[in-house]
């Protein structure tokens, strides 16, 4: 177990070393040009430093490697290696982006998220089950992604005083069409719950 953990940590360090090694080291990732504000690396570092889960970090690195210059990847760019098959990942198509608020439709939702919700969502518009939204509102994240062409990250820790705290992380990655407009959002949603049930057992 410790060996696996060590390997995991070393692989993260290797990934981070590649990420921050600058242009001196050859990379298989597409070359990234500086952003319009010239602070691309700073934004990159800030986001990576805030991600708490390796799942989110890996999703971000896949997305980053698939970008086309400053433009987010398109859906076809990320449909490889089962990258979208993660049980904690969902994909929505952006419908009528000019509407306020814009509309989204689930095209894929991971098994862990569906299990939490207790029903399938693929093909349904977001918000189809108000009051039962574990994926979260996408409007604000979409606006940020569309404006900056970069991911949107959220973190929350909830302590209600009636059990162990619940930690939540969500990373939203934009995908763009050939015209540069955002066509899809990929989300990775993680909950960590070790809530004590009344009988003392743990459940999620």
């Amino acid at each position, binding site marked *: 177990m410790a060996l696996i953990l060590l390997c995991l940590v070393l692989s993260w360090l290797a990934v981070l070393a590649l990420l921050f090694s600058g242009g001196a080291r050859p990379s298989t990732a597409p070359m990234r040009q500086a952003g319009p504000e010239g602070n691309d690396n700073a934004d990159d570092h800030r986001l990576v430093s805030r991600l708490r889960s390796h799942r989110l970090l890996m999703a971000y690195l896949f997305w980053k490697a698939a970008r086309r210059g400053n433009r987010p990847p398109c859906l076809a760019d990320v449909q490889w290696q089962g990258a979208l098959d993660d049980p904690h990942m969902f994909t929505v198509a952006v419908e009528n982006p000019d509407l306020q608020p814009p509309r989204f439709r689930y095209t894929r939702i991971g098994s862990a998220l569906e299990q939490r919700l207790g029903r399938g969502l693929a093909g349904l518009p977001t918000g189809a089950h108000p009051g039962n*939204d574990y994926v979260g509102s996408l409007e604000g994240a979409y606006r940020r992604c569309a404006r*900056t062409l970069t991911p949107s990250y959220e973190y929350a820790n*909830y302590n209600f005083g009636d059990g162990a705290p619940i930690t939540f992380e969500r990373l939203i990655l934009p995908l763009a069409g050939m015209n540069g407009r955002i066509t899809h959002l990929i989300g990775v*949603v993680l909950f960590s719950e070790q809530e004590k049930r009344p009988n003392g057992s743990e459940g999620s």
Partner: protein
Amino acid sequence: MEAKAPDFHDPALASIVETLPPAVVDALPYGAIRLDREGRVTFYSETERRLSGYDQPTVARSFFTEIAPCMDNAQFRGRIDKALAAGTLDITFSFVGDFNDPDRELDVRVQSAAGGGCWIFLRRL
């Protein structure tokens, strides 16, 4: 001697802040807003006023749908209400989009206040 500001992540942040004179709370490096049981603002710190750029707090927006992500469901709403009533609520979350800067990242902490209501602490990153 100048008192050290309580750490933003201190588990007893709200309790500590409530022992401080208003002038000290005004000068904390992060913003502080106190709401009573009915959601009315009873304290709005000078730091928050300065950093947000607003003379009046804009905290009336929907907590579940606009600020706290992924909590728009019956389970969480009920637990937040219960925790508020019991005085045990402690929520921390990141938020992007300050009042005058849509790309600003904030850490937001919501803790139960003594006697009901809650404190909202906002730290700009």
